[in-house]
């Protein structure tokens, strides 16, 4: 296999594609990121907030987008498509078509003049048609890359040969009407597909009146309405009369769980999406009432059930279990819903607005794509993958992640992306590499001790800034400030020629600090830092004043004030620059080995992925045998054999020359930090061993809840689903008749003390019930359920089970089923189960030959000890708490430690496998490097001032600062510190300082603005 090139093509730049690209690039692998639209970001930028934390979607995504566009190893191909993959895995030849953009991205400075002048208005796709855009535009405000593109189908010049206005107004000559589609060929080792999903188009649902009634909207349209950056600026209004709706109905499962339209799968995310929207809508308008019409609320993810509870308790969202039959428009634009309850009752109710919770479906053109790329699809048109190869397509070397192979929410997409990367590693070169510090090799000038010589560059940004702020005046003001050697105006500070100007001015005036007054450091600081380091200055001798966002944008109607504020901001930046000092990013060596804690499915899979990538792995299992909970799983929906897979996995682990396994082992202590962990453990022999390793994967698993409910333990006929599965496998059913089988769901889950859904029990029970059907076709199967949460493709099997005659009774926590032993003396007694049938509205009594309990999944009590050793948090349920539930789902805030499997939360085998791969992939982003660079802007302790009170330690999210117990002085771990400054703010002794943001620097900034408090005035 040829592995010389080391690059991967990623198709689709949504959150999954972005994550995959970033992970690969972090491992030193070149990435070609191919995206059809003019921007990266995918669906997430369209979302306002995200469940269950209500984080702003764009706020959490945009740092990843910026990182993606900046990374030197990632090449973006926007407005592009993948046409062909030829060759063999490890040596693919991909044909990509880059469509014409008609704007030269090198010249375009995103000033927006062209869009302003363009006469052609078209529907804005990003805003779901709720707003107009122009034929030359950015896809959305924060598009990345930010350059404009022309929509050739609407451009007057390209279609009719007239206009050329944009060309006339463009100050940089970036418009190029002669641009052509280009076919390029890319040689890559592997391909990762992440083309995502499309929202279901409910136009076919005539009875809900979408597009006919103006106040019926899709959930995605409603999301744009809720978004503060959306077309309505977050003020939800009805299209019919502009009135803010006071009561909104959400109709669930539009385009999901519907055999009639061949979509007999659950879209998995819409329940939470609707709950989130109802909460956000309520936050916008306290008087609003929201009603969700649903079949089952599928809040199966981590902390989802609490969010669902919160919607009911805190926000008064009403949940109505019923099926909406029809929506009718009334004269005033209101909508009347007709809906049926399970018992057949029909009701009518009026609403101001109706939101259709549309499902997720395969992307348009996915069949065509699958033909072109020779990959298989499942019967619904999603990319096909198997339970035990959940990230592989049917073609070797081509991986899949995100929602392309089945509906997923954000974190699952991110997890699958990191997992697919771990898969792709198989086809890549395993050599470790040394990341470069940047700087372009120019030797750094020594400036310490020199008098500050500051250069100030004030950007026009076309009219973006200069249209409001008198930039000439600002530059003149800057020139008069102390220590300013040079000040000038630049039209576009970020354009290539201006960057060259800055570099030559540094040389001409012997500048040792540079201030740019332009836009935001978030997007542009890295560029300017790079520029001054090319001019021989330490990159930290740079300061930025954001006179665009904070002056010309914020005060666009008050040019004078905007100008005066710009002067203040520039003066403050100069004051800060005066005190800037060169900072260094110190390298931290990384040990290449990994420690994996837990030898179940997740731990073993993670270990294999890391070991296959060429790293030694220490796998620690506390039990005598490997396999964990999977040892009790015997069936799978797709007919594959879990035990066969497991034994293959165990053989591979034990036979792997890079994996060392400890069984019956316990971990005594873990110290150190990313790249440099030290672990003490005792193995079977009882001998204490010490290991060094660079990363840790926590895969300790979970355990079945031990219930005392429903006569469990008092009769052999009351068993858990786990025991039942073994029974089905061994045929070890209780003696005698087996006609009446009752299954009770949510035993221990979703109630006080365990306010979470155990996620897998519904699917597991359905799976086992179907197995029972095969073995005992005449048995009657009864289910007592709260919500049936057979999300994703398990829905089909739920239908199959219902069609086979299984009966489902709904219960609530207040009306739980009861179980009595018919003969309490008999250890094999049959059980009398009483359950309230809400349809018949009476009690149903079943004398069960077997009662099967779907018991909850519990966190391991041992988690606490491990969490303390690793200094990582647990959630209130005792499960490991990841760094960010949406976008860092397998990382901890403390670097170099990762989590997967049941230790993180309940999940099935396939999901555990994906997450294990992801944890391995994330660990490899560190292990592949010989060293990493510590941040330059980190906290430092002035020992002589520290009193050792420990406030800093309490507030640090990264476990990067600790009080040395002997010296009574805080010590910063340079490798772990992220420079957030929380400890500095907490230190009343002034013993802590943030390099690059020192107290002295900040004080001089304040003083330049305020000078003196009012008390200083002498009357």
């Amino acid at each position: 296999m040829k592995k010389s090139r080391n690059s991967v093509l990623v198709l689709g730049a949504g959150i999954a594609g972005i994550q995959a690209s970033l992970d690969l690039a972090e491992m030193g692998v070149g990435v070609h990121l191919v995206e059809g639209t003019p921007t990266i970001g995918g669906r997430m930028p369209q979302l306002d907030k995200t469940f269950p934390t209500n984080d702003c979607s764009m706020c959490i995504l945009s740092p990843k987008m910026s990182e993606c566009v900046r990374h030197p190893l990632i090449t973006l191909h926007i407005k592009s498509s993948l046409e062909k993959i030829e060759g063999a895995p490890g040596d693919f030849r991909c044909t990509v078509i880059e469509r014409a953009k008609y704007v030269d991205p090198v010249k375009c400075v995103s000033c927006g003049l062209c869009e302003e002048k363009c006469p052609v208005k078209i529907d804005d796709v990003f805003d779901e048609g709720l707003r107009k855009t122009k034929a030359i535009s950015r896809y959305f405000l924060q598009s990345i890359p930010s350059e404009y593109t022309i929509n050739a189908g609407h451009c007057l010049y390209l279609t009719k040969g007239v206009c050329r206005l944009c060309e006339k107004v463009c100050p940089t000559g970036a418009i190029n009407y002669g641009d052509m589609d280009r076919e390029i060929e890319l040689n890559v080792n592997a391909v990762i597909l992440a083309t995502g999903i499309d929202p279901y188009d409910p136009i076919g649902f005539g009875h809900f009146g979408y597009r006919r009634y103006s106040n019926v909207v899709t959930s995605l349209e409603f999301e744009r309405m809720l978004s503060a950056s959306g077309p309505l600026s977050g003020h939800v209004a009805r299209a019919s009369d502009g009135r803010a709706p006071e009561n909104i109905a959400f109709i669930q499962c539009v385009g999901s769980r519907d055999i009639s339209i061949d979509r007999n799968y659950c879209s998995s995310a819409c329940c939470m999406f609707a709950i989130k929207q109802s909460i956000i809508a309520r936050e916008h308008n306290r008087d609003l009432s929201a009603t969700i019409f649903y079949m089952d609320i599928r809040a199966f993810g981590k902390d989802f059930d609490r969010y669902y509870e919160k919607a009911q308790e805190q926000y008064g969202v009403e949940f109505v279990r019923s099926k909406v039959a029809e929506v009718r428009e009334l004269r005033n634009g209101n909508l009347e819903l007709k809906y049926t309850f399970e018992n057949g009752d029909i009701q009518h109710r009026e609403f101001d607005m109706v939101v259709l919770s549309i499902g997720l479906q395969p992307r348009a053109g996915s069949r065509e794509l699958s033909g072109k790329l020779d990959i298989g699809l499942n019967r619904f048109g999603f990319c096909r993958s198997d339970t035990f190869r959940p990230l592989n397509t049917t073609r070797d070397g081509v991986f899949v992640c995100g929602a392309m192979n089945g509906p997923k929410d954000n974190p699952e997409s991110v997890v699958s992306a990191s997992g697919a990367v771990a898969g792709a590693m198989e086809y890549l070169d395993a050599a470790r590499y040394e990341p470069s510090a940047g700087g372009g090799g120019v030797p750094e000038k020594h400036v310490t001790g020199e008098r500050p010589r500051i250069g100030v560059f004030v950007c026009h940004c076309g009219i973006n800034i200069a249209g409001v702020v008198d930039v000439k005046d600002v530059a003149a003001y800057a020139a008069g400030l102390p220590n300013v050697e040079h000040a000038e105006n630049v039209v576009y500070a970020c354009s290539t020629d201006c960057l060259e100007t800055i570099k030559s001015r540094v040389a001409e005036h012997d500048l040792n600090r540079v201030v740019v007054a332009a836009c935001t450091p978030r997007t542009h600081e890295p560029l300017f830092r790079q520029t001054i380091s090319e001019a021989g200055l330490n990159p930290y001798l740079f300061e930025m004043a954001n006179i665009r966002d904070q002056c010309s944008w914020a005060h666009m109607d008050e040019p004078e004030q905007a100008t005066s504020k710009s002067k203040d901001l520039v003066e403050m930046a100069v004051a800060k620059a005066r005190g800037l000092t060169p900072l260094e990013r110190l390298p931290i060596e990384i040990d290449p080995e990994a420690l994996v804690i837990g030898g179940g499915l997740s731990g073993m899979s993670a270990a294999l992925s890391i070991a296959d990538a060429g790293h030694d792995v220490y796998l620690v299992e506390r039990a005598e045998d490997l396999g964990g909970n999977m040892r009790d799983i015997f069936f799978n929906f797709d007919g594959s054999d879990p035990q066969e897979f497991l034994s293959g996995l165990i053989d591979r682990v034990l036979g792997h020359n890079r994996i060392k396994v400890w069984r019956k082992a316990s971990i005594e202590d873990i110290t150190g930090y990313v790249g440099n962990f030290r672990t003490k453990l005792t193995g079977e022999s009882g001998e204490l061993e010490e290991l060094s390793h660079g990363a840790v994967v926590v895969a300790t698993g979970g355990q079945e809840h031990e219930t005392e409910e429903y006569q469990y333990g008092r009769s052999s006929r009351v068993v858990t689903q786990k025991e039942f599965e073994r029974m089905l496998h061994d045929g070890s059913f209780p003696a005698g008749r087996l006609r009446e089988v009752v299954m009770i769901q949510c035993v221990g889950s979703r109630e006080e003390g365990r306010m979470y859904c155990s996620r897998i029990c519904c699917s597991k029970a359905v799976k086992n019930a179907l197995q029972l059907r095969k073995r005992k076709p005449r048995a009657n199967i009864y289910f007592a359920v709260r919500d049936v949460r057979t999300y994703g493709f398990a829905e089909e099997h739920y239908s199959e089970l219902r069609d086979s005659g299984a009966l489902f009774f709904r219960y609530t926590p207040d009306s739980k089923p009861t179980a009595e032993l018919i003969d309490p003396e008999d250890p094999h007694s049959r059980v009398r189960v009483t359950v309230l049938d809400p349809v018949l509205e009476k009690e149903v009594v079943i004398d069960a030959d077997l009662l099967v309990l779907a018991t909850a999944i519990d966190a391991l009590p041992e988690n606490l000890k491990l969490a303390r050793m690793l200094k990582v948090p647990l959630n209130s349920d005792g499960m490991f708490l990841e760094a960010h539930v949406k976008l860092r789902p397998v990382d901890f805030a403390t670097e170099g430690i990762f989590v997967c499997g049941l230790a993180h939360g309940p999940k099935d085998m396939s999901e555990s496998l994906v997450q294990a791969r992801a944890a391995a992939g994330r660990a490899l982003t560190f292990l592949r490097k010989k060293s990493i660079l510590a941040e330059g802007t980190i906290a430092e302790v002035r020992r002589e001032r520290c009193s050792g009170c420990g406030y800093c330690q309490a507030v640090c999210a990264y476990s990067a600062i600790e009080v040395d117990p002997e010296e009574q002085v805080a010590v910063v771990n340079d490798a772990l510190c992220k420079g957030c400054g929380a400890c500095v703010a907490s230190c009343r002794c002034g013993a802590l300082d943030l390099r690059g943001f020192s107290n002295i620097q900040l004080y001089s900034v304040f003083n330049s603005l305020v000078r003196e408090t009012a008390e200083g005035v002498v009357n």
Partner: protein
Amino acid sequence: MISGEEERMDAAGIPYMIRPGKGPEGSVLDLLGQLIGSGGADALLLPFRVPSGDSFAWIMFSDVSLLKDAVPFPATMPVQGGRALRSLTRKEKGKLRIIALMRPCEIRAGMELSKLGQVNTENLILASYDCPGAVKLEDYVADPVSCDSAHSEMRSRGEPSGNARSACSTCVDFSMVDADIHFGYFGIKDGGMLVLPGSPAGRALLEGLNLEEGRGLLPQWEAEISRLAERRAATREETFRETAERISGFDGMLATFSNCIGCHNCQSACPICYCRLCYFDSEVSRTDPEALITAAEKRGGISIPPDRIMFHTGRLAHMSLSCVSCGQCSDACPVSIPVADVFSFVAERTQRAFDYKSGRSDGEALPLRRFLKNELDGVHEMVKDAESEASPNE
């Protein structure tokens, strides 16, 4: 007495009593001597009169013959006991098991310092007593003899008088606190005294002494404490009202602190200010001369030293959550600024915002070091209340 304290007392053991005879001072010294003799502790930390006769100093000793010169209930508080505890246990628990007899506010300061990693209580036995208040240092230095008799009068009445510190007149935590042992004598006739264990360690020590059971004295003591507490609470409310008026708005702050000479004595005397070097004494916080001149040019003039309000509000920000309202700051101020009134007033509010009270058991976490899902609920209302209180006419 709040029920929590009752529960603690139940856990800590039954109260003992000492019959009238030597009076509270003599009885306390006797008992401390016995404790050292019985091997319950290695050393004592007590106030002694200084040779010049006009102040007191903390002396640590183990020779019981020195006990006769100790002044268990000194009239003034020149060095806050919390500071003394810090000096002894700042780095570790210390080799000696020390019994320290202190005013309740001194013990509360010790508790706060313990939470801040500055005092280690592990080898300390803290003993408190019913405190009538401390006499102002200024008055005492001028006339120790008459101040001593005034203080003796305060002890017998259980109340601060004219030359007591303002902080003492408004103190409601003048009796039993989270100490290991408490000596209660307010309201007990003829110089009898209660000896109350406050912790298992205190109980263990007292059990070895063969003391008389004193439950019978409890009712009269408790009744007197709550009567006195009510009276002091009333004074406190009145003082808070005056303070609120005085410091309202920037002008109010300016007026209150306008005669500050920037000596930072308040900070040096404060038991809670634990920094090795105060931020406000550091170069960082000093205004650049150039900036002062520019400011003077802009405004037509400037007062020196600058940043006085910054210093005091800075200290409030740093310390008000732990402020035990001992009054050291006011006592240390050479220009008689009512620093303690301001600090007590602000401290009461910031502590209320976090549902926290300084000086309680050192097992309780400081609010800023504890992260809760819902914090500062209702703080908006508090701010609104404060605003409407401060400017009732608007």
